[in-house]
């Protein structure tokens, strides 16, 4: 049905009218690519996010996922609610044949981190973006692991209190579980550990991530590791311009429960693009920027499948 060229875009909806949903909305309106955002669905009729969406000409509804399910034209659904809600949403969206891009730590579908494995899961009906800390740190763990096996990786994510919404605060354990698992599955670490800290300083701090990596082996090719990390930084900067290593990777030795190991420390700062959220909320920006990147690739893939006559 798309042969006439009218449907060169895939219709999409966002569920969740909070900070993440709103920022993603602004990004999708600014850089729509092959996506036509038609709806923002929340559950609170008084939500500021819904009022903003309505004023921008989108269908803004407080009927949540039901409104999305009632509109058969919506093929792509970004879920920016909570881990708890997405478990229910995932099932309903799957049954309705919609593609879900999950921005919560629910992790129903396979993990996706754009510069590492974006192309691998385009035929899945649900993909998960892990956590903001995962999107920030996993690319660099993977960059080290490409050069030398990572025995253990640890990340410490420090975010401004003002940028942590109720979803993050009430589900802080899920952040830890999902991030550490992502560091293993996508980062390549044999074991991952995640720590999150909220800093209430005013003016708010930029999102900061410290990544510690313990290497396998007694020696390290420091130049090759540094080059791989720096290359990865530029790849992430393609879609998150404010992604920056504060110093080159620091190499050191550390006594661990498994003997002396080489420790690589990377200090990362993420400045947000400021599309809707303030620039200090780099943690939210990296999530919505990744969602935009993943959504665009899914949209292109869907359109290719349609034009080649394969039923989606």
């Amino acid at each position, binding site marked *: 049905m798309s042969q006439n060229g009218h449907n060169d875009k895939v219709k999409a909806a966002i569920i969740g009218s909070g900070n993440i949903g709103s920022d993603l909305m602004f990004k999708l309106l600014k850089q729509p690519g092959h996506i036509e955002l038609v709806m923002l669905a929340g559950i609170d009729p008084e939500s500021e996010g819904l009022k903003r969406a309505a004023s921008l000409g989108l269908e803004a509804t407080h009927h949540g996922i039901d409104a999305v399910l009632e509109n058969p034209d919506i093929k792509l659904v970004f879920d920016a609610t909570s881990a708890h809600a997405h478990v229910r949403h995932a099932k309903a969206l799957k049954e309705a044949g919609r593609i879900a891009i999950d921005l919560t730590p629910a992790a129903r579908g396979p993990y996706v981190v754009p510069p590492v494995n974006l192309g691998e899961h385009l035929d899945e009906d649900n993909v998960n973006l892990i956590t903001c800390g995962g999107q920030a740190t996993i690319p660099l763990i993977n960059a080290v692991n490409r050069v030398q096996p990572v025995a253990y990786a*640890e990340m*410490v994510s*420090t975010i401004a*209190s003002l940028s942590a919404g*109720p979803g993050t*605060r*009430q*589900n*802080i*354990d899920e952040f*830890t*579980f999902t991030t550490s698992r992502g560091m293993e599955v996508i980062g390549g670490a044999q074991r991952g*550990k995640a*720590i*999150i*800290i*909220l*800093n*209430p*300083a005013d003016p708010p*701090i930029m999102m*900061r991530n*410290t990544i*510690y990596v*313990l290497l396998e082996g007694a020696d390290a090719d420091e130049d090759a590791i540094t080059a791989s990390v720096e290359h990865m930084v530029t790849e992430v900067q393609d879609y998150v311009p404010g992604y920056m290593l*504060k*110093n080159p990777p*620091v190499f050191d030795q*550390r*006594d*661990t*429960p498994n003997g002396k190991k080489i*420790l690589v*420390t990377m*200090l990362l700062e993420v400045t947000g693009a400021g599309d809707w959220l303030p620039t200090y909320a780099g943690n939210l920006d990296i999530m919505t920027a990744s969602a935009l990147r993943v959504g665009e690739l899914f949209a292109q893939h869907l359109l290719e499948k349609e034009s080649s006559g394969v039923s989606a």
Partner: protein
Amino acid sequence: MKAPRVTDTTLRDGSHAMRHQFTVEQVRAIVKALDDAGVPVIEVTHGDGLAGSSIQYGFSGTSEMDLIEEARKVTTRAKIFALLLPGIGTRKELKEAIERGIQGVRIATQCTEADISEQHFGMAKEMGLEAVGFLMMAHMVPPEKLVEQGLLMEQYGADCVYVVDSAGAMLPNDAAARVKALKSNLKCQVGYHAHNNLGLAVGNTLAALDAGADQIDGTLRGLGAGAGNAPTELLVAALDKLGLNPGIDVFKLLDAAEFVVAPMMPFQPMPDRDAIAIGYAGVYSTFLLHAKRLGEQYGVDPLDILVELGRRKAVAGQEDWILDVTLDLANAQKETAT
């Protein structure tokens, strides 16, 4: 005033000074001595709480779960507690600690972030534990703000909420004002946890008692982060003289401090130059040893590192910022030199 409940946290806050290397034998000896002296609550955990064993905070020499289990085996009347910092530890480790024998948990957050602790209070209460809230770095906010956060913890199920002077930055009137504000607005108990960076750990604790604190903390010999904590033996001696001894044997506690703990200690924490800087700048006491190590490695004065961390408003658990600040200061020194 009434006699307060005393919690000894030598085996948790003291873990910082021990670089998290407490052994099963040391735990057994300390718990036996405290239990025998009549101390009612003993906290046993990695210094940064459950799952604190990490590159960020230092790996444990012996698993904290094994230490907890040993403590529970040895104690006859004292209750064994653990510390949990949401964001570092999770309900998974809390559950394991309960299975290994803890009877209570202290749940700690930065003093403005109490709402990250709801899940953990929920689990603790559901599993029949005593749950104590710990509002860390409490010098950073005025009493009214602390009340707002304390009420959240109370609502989640806290049996007691502590004013925690993690930076050892308070003066006696600061301690009293905060305890008093919590006492007048919360129905649950209120506690006070001191650090000795400005030499006021015992004085502040007495001021907190005077303001109505129901629970107080100490460590034998003051073994703890920064300049250490209020020495439990000193607190109990003072309580005894005030007629507020909750039933602890002063001389047995003096022996425990002198003959059990002192011989194990790598150094006696005290308000020396760098520790005073921590209290003065208002930074997290556990930063001390990390700042000393990195300062030496990069040729930067630890005092400069600590003061800069205070200026950047680093909070509990942000040990990674110490490297960051050290590298910035080292780079600045290089530029000045060239």
